């Protein structure tokens, strides 16, 4: 594929436009720009509608790009040709407070751990990794936090294995006609032992929904780093929920954890807002889940379950999710608190549709979560916490 388009008069303008798009956050590579110039050349670049479509077709790569494209095109060349503007017109993200240390909204909780501040370091002389593994990440000092980050970076999240359609040569299994005959050919038609093959196993897709609302603020960093480590398992998708739903898989795919965190904080517009779990879960299911992201996957919700909205909506959407997913796991950092009971309206509404209810407050808890996701540990919500009874939802509810 070589360029045959001679440079046209407006090249500088077009390149400037491409640069503006890049500044607005589109992944405009040189290859795409090249395609753009060729496309514009094949059309009538002086006609605004043609220019609009040439750019949109070659420089955008995702539905989420379209809205930004629309905006930059408008700024550079005036309003677009009134094509269909993408329906997900998001307002510009509001400025984000970064280090607002604030406990969960007092009105929403009313009980549970409200009166217990995240415990100050008690016996912090021996902060070995082993102790840290069990500490609540909400109550760590910066040095400990850094160490926890290193611990988290070692995670790999693998979904439970399932049979795949693909077959591999194996010692025992079904008769592999193709390879047997090929072997016969190789021997010039002389008899050869039959070859066998068996189905391979593949890990299931894992979907993480990370709550980044205000009440989860002490945990968001640790959980996202956990998600970052998990994404390297490739078959993992990560979304953040708060007041909006944001897909952050791509941002998390940076190998460097700090770069990934920066990319995520750039992409997520709703740090520390309220939680609208029901609405966002519905959005997740509508836009991604039902089409296949959640189908047959292990879906993990990392949230404390403080729901601002209608718990009935959350319950309905959880039932829907449960029907789609292979397993639904809920990891709640607050579960480890003494006296915790899943009485927050959202949590209580969700539990009947949850296969495993686990803790999520420390490195050790996340290790356990990884085991549950892998299917190694099927003991749903055992051990501590009063939520065990409701959480061991073996009696899967079918609607």
């Amino acid at each position, binding site marked *: 594929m070589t360029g045959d388009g001679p440079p046209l008069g407006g090249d500088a303008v077009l390149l400037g436009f491409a640069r503006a798009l890049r500044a607005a956050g589109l992944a405009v590579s040189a290859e795409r720009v090249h395609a753009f110039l060729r496309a514009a050349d094949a059309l009538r670049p002086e006609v605004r509608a043609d220019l609009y479509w040439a750019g949109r*077709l070659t420089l955008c790569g995702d539905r989420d790009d379209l809205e930004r494209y629309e905006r930059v095109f408008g700024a550079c060349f005036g309003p677009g040709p009134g094509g269909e503007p993408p329906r997900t017109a998001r307002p510009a993200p509001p400025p984000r407070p970064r280090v607002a240390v604030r406990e969960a909204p007092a009105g929403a909780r009313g009980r549970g751990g409200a009166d217990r501040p995240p415990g100050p370091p008690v016996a912090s002389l021996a902060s070995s990794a082993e102790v840290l593994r069990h500490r609540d990440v909400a109550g760590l000092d910066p040095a400990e936090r850094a160490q926890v980050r290193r611990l988290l970076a070692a995670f790999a999240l693998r979904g439970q294995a399932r049979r795949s359609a693909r077959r591999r040569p194996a010692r025992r299994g079904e008769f592999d006609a193709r390879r047997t005959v090929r072997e016969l050919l190789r021997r010039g*038609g002389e008899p050869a032992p039959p070859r066998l093959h068996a189905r391979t196993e593949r890990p299931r897709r894992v979907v993480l929904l990370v709550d980044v609302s205000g009440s989860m603020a002490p945990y968001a960093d640790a959980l996202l780093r956990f998600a970052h480590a998990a994404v390297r398992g490739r078959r993992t998708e990560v979304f953040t929920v708060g007041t909006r739903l944001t897909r952050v898989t791509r941002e998390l795919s940076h190998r460097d954890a700090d770069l990934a965190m920066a990319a995520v904080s750039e992409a997520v517009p709703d740090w520390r807002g309220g939680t609208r779990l029901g609405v966002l879960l519905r959005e997740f299911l509508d836009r991604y889940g039902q089409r296949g992201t959640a189908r047959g996957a292990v879906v993990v919700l990392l949230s404390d379950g403080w729901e601002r909205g209608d718990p009935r909506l959350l319950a309905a959407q959880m039932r829907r999710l449960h029907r789609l997913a292979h397993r639904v796991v809920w990891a709640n950092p607050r579960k480890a608190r003494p006296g915790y009971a899943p009485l927050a309206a959202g949590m209580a509404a969700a539990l009947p549709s949850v296969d495993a209810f686990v803790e999520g407050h420390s490195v050790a808890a996340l290790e356990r979560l990884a085991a549950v996701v892998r299917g190694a540990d099927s003991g749903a919500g055992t051990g501590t916490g009063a939520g065990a009874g409701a959480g061991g939802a073996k009696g899967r509810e079918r609607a």
Partner: protein
Amino acid sequence: MTGIDSPEEARARLEETGYLVDDGLAVACFLALRLHRPVFCEGDAGVGKTALAGALAEVLGAPLIRLQCHEGIDASQALYDWDFPRQLLHLRAAEAAGVTDADRLERELYDRRFLLARPLLRALQTQPSVLLVDEIDRADDEFEAFLLEVLSEFQVTVPELGTLRAEVPPVVVLTSNRTREVHDALKRRCLYHWFDHPGFARELAIVRRRLPGVSARLAEQVTALVQALRAEDLLKPPGVAETLDWVRALDALGADEAGAELAMATLGSVLKYREDTDRARGLDFAAILAGRGAGTG
């Protein structure tokens, strides 16, 4: 090769086949033909992504070659395979006939006639052709990488035969339902088009065009109902395909217009979830129909 020299012409030719396109898609099709770039189609189910390939094939008078992607699909299913049983038979036959020239026999074994062309190779060998790679998001990453190679060079290397190259690259349409992020390297080589649900006027035009024998009033009413349903908060908003199904269903029942009751009774052809049906039952179909009826007289 096609005599399509502008987006307008692409649009006109596609409309002759009954496939109505908006501005963006017309430009996309024109560029796909002119620059030999695949078109990457994303959008909800039933908005006409797959139908686009069929329409393009009809416009070009070319066969439509379809590759349905699924998990675990690999090169031997998508590209080519050797017909081993026939090769073996050939070997036996040659042996029985007393052929002793081993070199010649080997050459014969890997002859083209024993090569089973799967969709991708068939598309490269057929000129012209339209290749539909359906639901690419269902395939694995490895397959995506493999496809990338085929689509950027439009050639394939078979070790025993050498490189097979398409003299005229096929027109390629890829579709995705966004269940998974398709790798950017693949998208970069494509023209990206997002399919939205059509507005009332365009959808009505599509229905009229695709189902010319149906009463105009019925087409209009059903379109209005579907548009109203789409505005509702449904699990699965109906696509154009469902609109056509609904019109066909009512037409099969002998209806010239969609009464509220009849529409309610045939909801199953548009809505496929119980929750959605429940919600639709709460709507005032009569009012929607009346509103549209009054609007157009």
